[in-house]
């Protein structure tokens, strides 16, 4: 049996008030493996949120095409949104996670212990009984992640979950996602923050409802390996996204003959590049 999650020729059509249809997703196909980590990027209106919801198994009006849920199983997967407030239904982190477990029909006597363990993992135990107003946006977002993933789902979708957070809290949400990933959960990470991408992780980029790029992070930023010291438009720019400052600098260094392929991307690679630059 194929346990991949498969999206086959899927379109999502919306009809506006004049009766004209437009496609939010246009004949799109994608596959996702068990335990994979996938970055999904694109500008607003590219359809990435719609695809995120589809992958999470949430009902989307106007969807035509087929999908095999594979390892993700029937029913909706965990889904974390940008705004924590609309996805928190209780008043404190402890209540929130309890509420989530109740609906998974976890036996009553197990609930308190499991809630405790989940909150501890996220570093929220001290704030377990504080009302939302006393938590920062990032802490509320962490609580939403814990509640969404409380039942160890095989798949979790983060829809720009860190876009409202500062670097430090964004890092904590990401760390939590990495923990889930290590435990075998497949993670779909939607983002506009290109500095979050990793050179060897899969990136899927959407433009106008179609997949424009499906490959590795480094290739997404810099394009394919080349030897002519030229600066060309990269997949990132083709998708309407701004090339990050450091990537721009890497290109200039490449053009000036100071660095070679593969161009640096991670902080460690940059640190090496800098060291070499000054060793001369």
């Amino acid at each position, binding site marked *: 049996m194929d346990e991949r999650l498969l999206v086959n020729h899927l379109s999502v059509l919306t009809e506006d008030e004049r009766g004209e249809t437009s496609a939010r997703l246009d004949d799109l196909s994608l596959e996702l493996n068990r335990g994979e980590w996938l970055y999904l990027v694109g500008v607003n209106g590219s359809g990435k949120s719609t695809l995120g919801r589809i992958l999470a198994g949430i009902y989307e009006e106007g969807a035509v095409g087929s999908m095999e849920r594979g390892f993700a199983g029937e029913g909706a*997967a965990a889904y974390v949104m940008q705004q924590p407030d609309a996805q928190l239904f209780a008043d404190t982190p402890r209540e929130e996670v309890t509420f989530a477990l109740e609906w998974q*029909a976890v036996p*009553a006597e197990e609930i308190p212990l499991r809630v405790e363990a989940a909150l501890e993992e996220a570093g929220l135990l001290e704030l377990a009984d504080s009302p939302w107003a006393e938590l920062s946006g990032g802490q509320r977002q962490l609580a939403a992640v814990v509640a969404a993933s409380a039942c160890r789902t095989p798949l979790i979708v983060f829809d720009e979950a860190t876009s409202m957070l500062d670097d430090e809290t964004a890092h904590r949400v990401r760390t939590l996602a990495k923990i889930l990933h290590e435990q075998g959960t497949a993670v779909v990470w939607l983002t506009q923050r290109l500095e979050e991408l990793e050179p060897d992780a899969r990136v899927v980029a959407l433009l106008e409802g179609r997949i424009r790029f499906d490959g590795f992070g480094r290739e997404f930023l810099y394009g394919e390996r080349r030897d002519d010291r030229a600066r060309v438009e990269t997949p990132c720019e083709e998708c309407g996204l701004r090339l990050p400052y450091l990537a721009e600098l890497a290109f200039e260094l490449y053009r000036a003959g*100071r660095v070679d392929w593969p161009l640096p991307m991670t902080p460690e690679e940059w640190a090496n590049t800098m060291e070499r630059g000054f060793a001369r």
Partner: protein
Amino acid sequence: MTLARESDLLVRFREDANPLRLRSGSITVLFGRNGAGKTYWLESLAGLHQGASGTEVRYGSLRLWKEGRRGRKARNPDALKAYAYSSQAPEEQLVGRTVEEELLETLKPYSLSSEECKRRMLAALEAVGWEESWLVRSPYRLSGGERRRLALACLLVAPSDWLLLDEPTAGLDAPGQERLRQILAERAAREGQGVLLISHDTEWALPLADRVLLLAADGGSLRECSPEELLRHPEWWEEAGMAVPAWLKILAPLLRTGIPISSVWKPSELARQWGSPVREAGESPPESSVVYRMGNASARQERKKGSLSSIAFFDPRALWLSYVLLSVAILAQQSWWGAAAGGAIAAAATWGGRIPLGRWRGFILSFLVFTLTVSVVAGIGRDAGGQWGFQGEAFLTALHSMARTFIIFLLGLGLAVSITPIRLRRSLESVLGFRGRIAPAVQKFLLTVTLMLRFIPIFLSEWERFNRYAIARGKEAGRRSLGGSVRRLSRTAQPFLLSLFRLGDQAAVALESRGVGRQKYPTLLRLSNWGKRDTVLVVVVLLLSLVLWLVRGLGA
């Protein structure tokens, strides 16, 4: 633009301190950690909050707040007209049926001639890359990106000295960000407008900035410096509770070699200097960084605290029982003394239980007005002799019964505010459940009610938010006419309703992804046990109600 007069933006945090001066014709960028209160501060500069006491804001010679009658502070409409404000997601505020209507809505407070309006509208459209033909389009038929562009045109169309923008690049694609950068730079350089913007996008905002403001994490102080100084002092980020931006951290060794700071914004120049021998860092220019104490950190802390009432520690069932007992006793009162006693009990419970009713002040006041109006109307009628007139007796009778209702309403509101919805649901479930199960229909009903209660505070803050934006756009001062109120209501209601739909949609998605409703019989958790304090509460209230009940006829 009225450039003849001085139009710098001045903020004086304390009476004896030097003011912070933001110069017209320059671009200032505000950075700060999440939750430090950046948006709150920007809204204070726009007069949408009163801000900390002792803080004075002036647009040129125009004070933002004026002493009104009876010492109350009132917004100065002329100062409000000195800025144009763009909130986060400004496209949520579009209310017009056509692009032209939308732009005129922004221009309305300025009372310009129709030629001037037309000229400004065309200039604003041109700035965002549109032609005159766009005027007749409907905002509702625009794509998300186009709506955002229209909101930008609305910001640019106003003849104001200042542009205040909250996270303007969030959600914009690369060409949109580049367009915005060009427009802002041009507005500052050529038209002399002042620009103040909040951003977390350091790569975009720092090269654009003439001056930088760093808001401390506790919202208590503000550092003003140049972008170059900030590059030289990465520790300032950390002092303000923020991480040094990743790109800056990586460049740090390069900057220490004495490379001219200006080349940071020109990667090609930077690349050419790469690997050149380390120079002695030259004389660094004199520093002009100033830290302003804002003194409202404690006020902000208070804003966040105090949301948990002390009566939340009782079992919800005990609280409901107490409420029912008291209500019956208060309703039975026949005399004014009895009603007064009921009122005293309600006041004592609210105060002693630290029930946060302040949030509902407007709601309570309107109920009070309603109470009085009904009583007055009830008092108008024929007297014993058949004469029409105001009947004191009938008025007082009506007032007496309405007053008791009002007291019970206050107690009930307090109860609803202080029992958290999910505790309420659990207590109802434990009453209605049978053998650890509860009928799906009842379950559904309870869930709906709890969610409604849970989201009411969010609805309230959404309403307040759009109401503030309506003030920023409509430029109204404090006291308003009936017409002004109606206009503000319509400017608030429409975006508010759309925002409710979005919230509802998101909540539905979140519930679906949590698997709520997939299980027919979710786990029923029992409440923590009925404690001694719950018994004490019920007994005390029972005695109190009995006394009230016994004396109900006294003095009537």
